[in-house]
Structures are given as structure tokens and as C-alpha cells.
């Protein structure tokens, strides 16, 4: 079941039968269509015709905390032992965590968290989180051996085109958590990564080593060093495009950086993907509370971040 090869099928119109076949052959769990989820849904429904073999494709389970430690003054890393299905999460996908009560506050809704890491054997999934409110304060209380109800993997993750040679990852804040596993996925696919990591201070550039270990060129930019402004990031990116070259942009965590990337992508005809955030209730497309507007060829279309995303086409994203 767990398949690590990721294939990008660029197909705007494919006969459903053929597509279904192609997918079965490729053993591919998730595909990325320019026109969104509809075909994927049809596909899922096709599988349903034979009711006997209905199986959940998203797990709702009680995972067990392996560790939950501060990585710096702001972020904590939570490692969970989980099912194979949960551990099959892809970079850019997320989980809905049923955070425990803390100090009498009981968070009613689940909290969305990007996967920060995953391992197949033994199956594990990791999160990197910042304590900001009731839910994350609850996460903070977890210690080794504690149960945590997790629901995922959810949403559409990042997709890599195996023909790419070099990509740029540009992230800030919790966005670094979301981009981190993409760096290792790219490394496995033989794609070079340049990671531009933005933070308030150098000590908050949490995942720099993780990116470096995947062979990425890491450029840290920070507010305290006055290097994180859009102008400087743009300069770095122009340097990359002019030098080694760049096939695609990936970003998360800053709408200021998003705009820089959108401008450059348009100028150089590059594609890009962006992971977006929005408050969520269900996490699986039921409630429509997580919508954002997207510019789909001039039409402003409202889409659900949890279901149509959280990874979207960079060109379509709006702040």
C-alpha cells in the first residue's frame, strides 16, 4: 500500500476509464489535476461500485506520542507512532488533531497541522507546532506514551514533476514545517532544492538543518538582520533563476512572499505551488468554513482549503 514514487499526471481531459487504469497501474495514491478534485472524486466513487472492498483512505485513530520536545523558543516537535495509513501522508498534507484539554480549556474543534515528517517502518508521523492558543497549549502537555486522536492524512499535498531539475522553496513561520518534508521528497526524486527560509531571528530558523541534510542550499533571511524583506528575497530568487535555474516555486506562510513569487513566476513563465491556511472545522470538505477566494483565469472562485488544497496553484492564490 505505501508507495513512495510520486508521479505528476498532467491531464486536463482524460477519459475516466483510462485514467482509472493509469492510476491503478501507477499505484499512485494522489494525483494533481489542474481542474481540481472532481475526477479524483469520480475515481473514488468508481471504486465504490464494489462495496465489499470499501476501505477508509483517511485514518481516524488514536496515535501514541513518541516525543514532544521544544526545538527552539517558539516551536515544538511532536512525533507520533501511528498506522501505516496515517504514515502514508505526503508533503503538504495535514492532519486534524483532537487536542487535549489544558488548564480547564477544552478545545472543541480539531486543529489542523501539516505533516512535518513521516516514516513507513515503524509507521510514524511528525508535526512541528507553535503554541498559540487553547489547542496548541493542549498539545504542549503531551508526554511520551500519551494517546492523541489524529485524523488524516487530509487534503491535496505538493506534487513534483520528475522532469524538474531545480526548485525553490520559500517559507516563513509555520510554513517551514509544511515545506520541510517536500525537501526530502525532492531529494529522493533527484531534484535540487534551494530553500529560502524566513524568520524573525536567526535562532527561529528551525528546520534549516533538516533542509541542509536533504542536500538543499539554504538561505536564511531574518527580520533582525533586515534580510527578510521582499526586495532581498526577490534578489536571491533572480540570482537563482539566472544561475542554476529554477523550474518551480513552492511556498507557505507569508502572503508578502507569495506576491513576490507570483510576480517572478509570471515574469519567467514558471509554475508554482502554495500551501495555504484557513480556520477549519471538519477538515474534509463538509462545512465550507475554510474557503478562500482564488483567481481561476479571471473568475474569482471560492474553494475549500481543506479539500481543494491546502496546496494550490501559485498563480491562482489570492492573499
Amino acid at each position: 500500500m505505501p508507495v513512495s514514487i510520486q508521479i505528476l499526471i498532467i491531464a486536463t481531459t482524460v477519459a475516466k476509464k483510462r485514467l482509472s487504469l493509469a492510476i491503478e497501474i501507477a499505484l499512485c495514491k494522489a494525483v494533481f489535476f489542474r481542474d481540481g478534485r472532481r475526477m479524483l472524486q469520480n475515481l473514488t466513487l468508481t471504486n465504490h461500485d464494489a462495496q465489499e472492498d470499501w476501505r477508509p483512505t483517511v485514518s481516524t485513530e488514536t496515535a501514541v506520542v513518541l516525543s514532544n520536545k521544544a526545538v527552539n523558543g517558539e516551536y515544538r516537535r511532536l512525533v507520533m507512532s501511528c498506522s501505516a495509513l496515517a504514515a502514508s501522508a505526503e508533503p503538504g498534507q495535514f492532519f486534524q488533531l483532537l487536542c487535549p484539554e489544558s488548564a480547564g480549556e477544552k478545545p472543541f474543534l480539531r486543529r489542523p497541522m501539516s505533516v512535518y515528517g513521516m516514516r513507513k517502518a515503524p509507521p510514524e508521523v511528525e508535526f512541528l507546532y507553535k503554541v498559540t492558543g487553547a489547542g496548541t497549549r493542549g498539545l504542549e502537555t503531551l508526554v511520551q506514551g500519551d494517546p492523541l486522536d489524529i485524523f488524516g492524512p487530509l487534503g491535496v499535498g505538493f506534487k513534483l514533476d520528475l522532469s524538474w531539475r531545480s526548485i525553490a522553496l520559500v517559507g516563513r513561520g509555520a510554513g517551514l514545517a509544511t515545506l520541510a518534508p517536500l525537501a526530502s521528497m525532492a531529494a529522493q526524486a533527484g531534484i535540487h532544492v534551494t530553500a529560502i527560509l524566513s524568520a524573525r531571528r536567526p535562532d527561529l530558523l528551525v528546520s534549516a538543518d533538516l533542509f541542509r541534510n536533504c542536500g538543499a542550499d539554504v538561505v536564511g533571511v531574518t527580520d533582525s538582520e533586515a534580510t527578510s524583506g521582499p526586495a532581498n528575497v526577490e534578489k536571491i530568487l533572480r540570482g537563482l533563476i539566472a544561475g542554476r535555474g529554477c523550474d518551480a516555486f513552492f511556498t507557505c506562510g507569508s502572503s508578502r512572499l507569495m506576491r513576490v513569487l507570483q510576480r517572478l513566476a509570471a515574469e519567467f513563465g514558471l509554475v508554482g505551488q502554495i500551501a495555504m491556511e484557513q480556520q477549519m472545522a471538519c477538515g474534509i470538505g463538509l462545512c465550507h468554513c475554510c474557503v478562500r477566494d482564488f483567481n481561476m483565469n479571471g473568475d474569482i472562485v471560492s474553494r475549500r482549503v481543506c479539500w481543494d488544497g491546502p496546496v494550490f496553484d501559485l498563480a491562482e492564490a489570492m492573499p
Partner: protein
Amino acid sequence: MSVDLSVTVGTLRLRNPVMPASGTFAEGLDNVVDFEKLGALVTKTITHELRTGNPLPRVVEQPSGLINSIGIPSKGLDHFVEHMLPLYARYSTPLVVSISAPTVEGFANLARAVSIPGVAAIEANISCPNIEEDGKAFAMTPESTERVTSALRSSTGLPLWVKLTPNTGDIAAVARSAERAGANALVVANTILAMAIDLKTFRPSLGNILGGLSGPAVKPIILRQVYQCAKVVAIPVIGCGGIATAKDAAEFMLAGATAVQVGTATFIQPDAMVRIIDGIKQFCLHRDIPRASDLVGGLVVEESDEPDMAWMEPAQ
């Protein structure tokens, strides 16, 4: 012993009494729940035209509950018929289509338009504002409930479920008027009008200022309304409000509900409906109850329990 979980809602036989609440269900849930196991499927409310829904933020959590002001983003009737209906054709589980409109005529037209193969029943969400009555929801008064239900009744041959609002002062009277006008079942109820304020900004927590409260917090209130309605109508009542466990479902059935809808609980436990179905079975097994339908209206109320009208609490 085996337990017969099936229930009959009007002419519709359901394999069990558990179905989703409108607006908390969509095709994506089939990643977690086998739709063939549910009693029915209920769509998000659809409207005739394309609509965008309310401004963000659209939800805010509360102790044991959720306030939402999603509104009714809808891709419209045509999209529903062309794209959504075929998706559900693949399931043997009956599909209930929730509809809404701002006028009596709009309601009737939409009901007519969705009375097509693949639709097993219509759920009329009459908790929406009636623009012909100053924006007051149809289900706030027995009169406008009767008007809209009559119009719906004559526009469709499908089973007609009418979904009431809990915000009215006399839900039993509204229930009676819906029955009189030809409803085949009542869904009791929609969300309770509520509010929250963001203390960082001193602004409403919801883009729409007001929203509807759902989840365990409302259960005791809606359970009471189900009891009040089931006492005065002969048609089935479908309970909906804060049901999160099989025990909650059992309480609703004892109070008179023939079936139950599960909404917010699915956001917390995505497979809540399946757990509830299994739980009802266990509940019946442990008590030697052969049919889930035996629970319906099974509340034991003795004479001496009848409240002393003149001084009943909490009408303190």
C-alpha cells in the same frame, strides 16, 4: 439475539436511524465512512441560484459547541442535478436533498425541480428567512410554516421532510401546522441563533455577527423540542441537535424521534455516525430490545411526573 436497526420514516424504510445533518456532509466523507452503512444521505442545502455564503470567519468554537455562519453557499440547481446527483447514484442508501428558497414560490419551484430519479426525499430547510415576511424565517410561525409546506406539498410527490427552527417560541404549534399542511416528517431542528465576541478586536467573532449554535451544548434544548413535537404530531420526527454518541441517539428516540441526524459530531469524530449505529445496536442488545424502532417514544412518564403547570420550572 440480533437487533433489527431499520426504521420507517413515512414511506421510506431506512436500514438504520442514523443519517447526516444537512451542511455537515459531503462526498469527501466517503474517505472515512462507508456510505452504504448509513440510514440515509442528506445533502447540504441547495438553492436555485448560485450563492456564495457568508463572510469569514464562519465558525467559532464554544464550550461543547460550535457557532457557524456558513450561510448557504450553493452552486445552484443545475450543478446539483448534473454533477452531484450522479455521484450519489452509486449508493443504495437513499438520498435526501435539502432545499431552501427565500419565497414560497421559490420553494415550490425548487421542490418540483429536484423531484427526479435519484432523490428519495426532500428536506425543506424552512429555517431560512422569508423575504416576503421581512426576513423572518418561515419556521418561526405556524402560519408561514403552513403556507410554505402546503406549496411544497402540491409541488412534489416525493416524501417531504420539513426542518424546523429551534428559535421559535412555540415549536409544537409550528410542528402541528407543518403536519396539517402535508409534511411527511419533521426534522427537529436547525441551529440556535447565537453570538460570540472576539476580545482582541472587540468585534463579532463571526463575519456575519450572528450564527447558529450546534453540538452537545444544544442537545438538552433540542431533545426537549423533539419531545414537545413528537407529543403533538403523528408523523415521524427526526431528531437533530448535539447528537454525538449512541446514548444521545437513544435519548432522542425515547423522546419520540424515529431517526436522528448527526452534524457537528462528525467534525470532531469523522466516523461518529458509524460509531453511533454500532452503539445503538449494542444498546439494544444489552437490554434485549429486538428492534431499534422499539425505542421510539419509549420514555416512561408517570402521571405524577406531569409538571404542575401552574408552577413549572424553568418557566420559574
